């Protein structure tokens, strides 16, 4: 068989004899380390989405304070706990500024009474239907009517902004004239007839509530001219009996002089707000318990969290890298002493450090709250990075290329930072990104617990917003809802993003955490 396989020599010919074959130069451009990482990162869809979410949140924090009408310090106590409202979004059924409320008969009359009073511009009277159809009627929609225990109840959607209704204010006479001029110009009524609060038709406790413009008895039930209780059917038919102050001619009065310069007036607060600010009171994300606009406050909270997190990350990275490099490069006694120091530091509970810094530096006013927190984070935060860098240095410092560089006379510093350090870059970048959610979480916790206090009109943090909102969790959950959403989104996206980076920089670790 073997003999048969013999092929005569002349059957072989050269494929080509005219060209010399060499290793060909790569046609493509060389891919750098970062480019390589980017190519891998790009494939991780979850991380890309996370990165986009982070960018959006950062943009929100940066841009919103410039484009919104409200400033961080703007607070209107009257418009506290307002629901999210936006005219455009209301058309598709969200952010209508409404919430559900259960009304009994008396409360129903009170609520619809606000709408009736809005229509009752000059004491001429307004019917039930007019009040119901008024553009500023608090009751926007009736969900259901039912009876419980022989009483009538109604579930209605109430507009939180219109529900405020009327307020008594003390203003100067010149202010009064300005409002009157503005009213004419804009065709909006701010000043409404004054209620005679000192007669027997206003119950003692209701004297400060400008929405009690109708005659009522000691039980706050509306009554007619003779003091007889009115039934709901009667009111629907004939309307309420007003309790306005009238002069001798029977014309309504619009103010009560208090002293030489001040007068008391009754204003429709919604229009008064427009007069004061030039725009309608609309809060896209509503307002918190003190009347701060949540949209703006949250943007500032995000700024604060991110500024803190990024600076902590950068500072810790620098200190940790230097410390770890020295430890790892020199080893021996230096390493042991430095390790013990970081051991002890890492044993200090963070919360103790943070609290002591706040007590010693912030409360006496030596540094800002943010500064105190930054110190606390930096004191122990660099240890993790130092550990990572140290390990990498141990791994690389005795490799042949380092030895050759040393033989060629490279200085220690050059060896450390030019030859060994770049190997740790991937680990460092990853860990510095993964530090960020941790810092945000801790900062939020500390400000939530009140250890770091950001509660001021010019500064806030997400944690402070949560702490302030917790009181209203049952009645006004939106106050706590938005900061919670943002903080959860931040945490999830930074974790996903960090994991994506780690996979991109260290493909060998891939799958360990997946």
């Amino acid at each position, binding site marked *: 068989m073997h003999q048969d396989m013999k092929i005569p020599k002349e059957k072989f010919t050269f494929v080509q004899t005219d060209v010399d074959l060499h290793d060909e130069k790569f046609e493509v451009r060389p891919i750098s380390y970062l480019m390589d990482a980017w190519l891998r990162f790009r494939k991780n869809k979850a991380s890309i989405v996370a990165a986009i979410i982070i960018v959006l949140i950062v943009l929100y924090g940066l841009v919103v304070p410039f484009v919104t009408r409200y400033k961080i310090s703007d607070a209107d106590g009257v418009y506290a706990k307002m629901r999210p409202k936006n005219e455009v979004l209301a058309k598709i059924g969200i952010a209508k500024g409404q919430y559900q409320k259960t009304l009994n008969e008396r409360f129903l009359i009170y609520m619809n009474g606000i709408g009736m009073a809005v229509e009752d511009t000059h004491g001429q009277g307004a019917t039930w239907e007019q009040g119901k159809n008024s553009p500023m009627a608090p009751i926007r929609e009736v969900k259901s009517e039912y009876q419980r225990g022989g009483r009538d109840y109604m579930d209605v959607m109430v507009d939180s902004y219109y529900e405020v209704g009327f307020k008594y204010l003390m203003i100067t006479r010149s202010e009064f004239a300005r409002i009157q001029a503005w009213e004419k110009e804009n065709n909006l009524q701010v000043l409404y007839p004054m209620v005679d609060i000192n007669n027997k038709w206003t119950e003692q406790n209701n004297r400060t509530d400008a929405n009690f413009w109708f005659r009522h008895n000691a039980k706050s039930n509306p009554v007619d001219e003779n003091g007889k209780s009115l039934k709901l059917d009667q009111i629907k038919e004939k309307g309420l009996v007003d309790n306005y102050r009238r002069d001798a001619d029977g014309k309504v009065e619009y103010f009560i002089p208090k002293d030489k310069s001040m007068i008391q007036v009754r204003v429709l607060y919604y229009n008064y707000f427009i007069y004061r600010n030039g725009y309608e009171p609309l809060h896209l994300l509503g307002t918190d318990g003190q009347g701060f606009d949540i949209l703006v406050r949250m943007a500032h909270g995000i700024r604060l969290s991110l500024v803190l997190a990024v600076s902590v990350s950068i500072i810790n990275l620098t200190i940790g890298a230097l410390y770890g490099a020295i430890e790892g490069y020199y080893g021996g006694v230096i390493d042991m002493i430095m390790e013990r120091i970081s*051991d*002890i530091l890492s*044993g*200090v*509970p963070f*919360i*103790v450090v943070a*609290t*002591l810094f706040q*007590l*010693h530096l912030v409360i006496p006013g030596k540094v800002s709250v943010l500064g105190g927190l930054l110190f606390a984070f930096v004191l122990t935060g660099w240890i993790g990075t130092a550990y990572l860098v140290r390990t990498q240095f141990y791994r690389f410092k005795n490799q042949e290329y380092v030895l050759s560089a040393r033989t060629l006379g490279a200085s220690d510093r050059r060896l450390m930072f030019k030859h060994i350090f770049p190997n740790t870059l991937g680990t460092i970048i990853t860990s510095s990104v993964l530090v960020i*959610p941790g810092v945000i*979480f801790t900062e*939020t*916790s500390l400000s*939530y*617990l*009140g*250890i770091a206090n950001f509660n001021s009109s010019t500064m806030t943090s997400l944690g402070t917003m*949560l702490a302030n909102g*917790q009181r209203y*969790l*049952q009645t006004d*959950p939106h106050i*706590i809802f938005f900061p*919670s959403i943002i*903080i*959860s989104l931040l*945490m*999830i996206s*930074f*974790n*996903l993003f960090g994991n994506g980076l780690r996979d991109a920089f260290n493909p060998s670790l891939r*799958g*360990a*955490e*997946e």
Partner: protein
Amino acid sequence: MNHFKYILKRIVLMLFTLFIIMTISFVLIKMLQPETPMMGLQAELERARREALGYYKPVMTQYWIYLKNIITSWDWGTSWQIDYRVPVTEVLMRRLPPTIIVNVLSLIVSVPLGIALGIFAALKKNKWQDHFISTTIMVFVSVPSFVYAFIVQYFLGFRLGWFPLIASSLHEAGGSWLSPVMLHSLVMPVMALSFSPVASLARSTRAELTESLTSEYMLLARTKGLTRSQATVRHALKNAMVPILPRIISLFAGVIGGSLIIEKIFAINGIGGLFIQSIYQLDYDVFIGTDMFYTAVSLVTVLVMDLSYGFLDPRVRMGER
């Protein structure tokens, strides 16, 4: 013998760390002098009390006395603000049960659940169940515990009204920490505390188990004729548990530290609240006592964790080179 020496070395080191932290805390907190807003006789009394307690001596002298009291008679000082004239050890003991009960309950719930979920996900690797669990885990690991607390409190407590909004007091619960009333009121805090340990345990169990399921000894076990479930339970699971067990130990510390917020949200009168209270009321001895408690818990946890690695897997000697 070598092993014993190593443990001893670690313990001595731990005590040294504890001592340094205690010194730092003592000096720093003593540097904050409480205000004396009181007038007349009361101010006199207050000053006399401080004089007697040695508040006007140099800080290091005070520290020396403090240390001597601890060593000779286990006297950690007295609370002057929070629980008037009650020894610190007793104050701590009073506040410990709620914290411990909540945390232990949460561990009882989260450890089996987390491991079970992790095993399930690993066995169903790359099927939809696995993707579902893994995505949920990712979300639950990241979302901070107070957000769960708010969600649980709002929906289960307020909307549905299944559980009381805050933990009931010992008095309401009939004087027992384990009475049905108390346990019922603790359901929500325990839930809020359990979400992230469940998620993180499930995540690491899944990671470890998928790794050991694909290793060679599994192939060997199957070739020798074991069924899939036999091989999984006897070989893969056992090996996967080696890094998981220390993690469970570390959860103890994490949970005690993390419950500060949960305690505040659900008004649990535990040690976390005591810590914050002691700082704001400048109750020195209580502060140091609580501080030392926290530090000791975290240091002991790290120690036990490192030692248990070596115990479970003799190839590992943490901290040795």
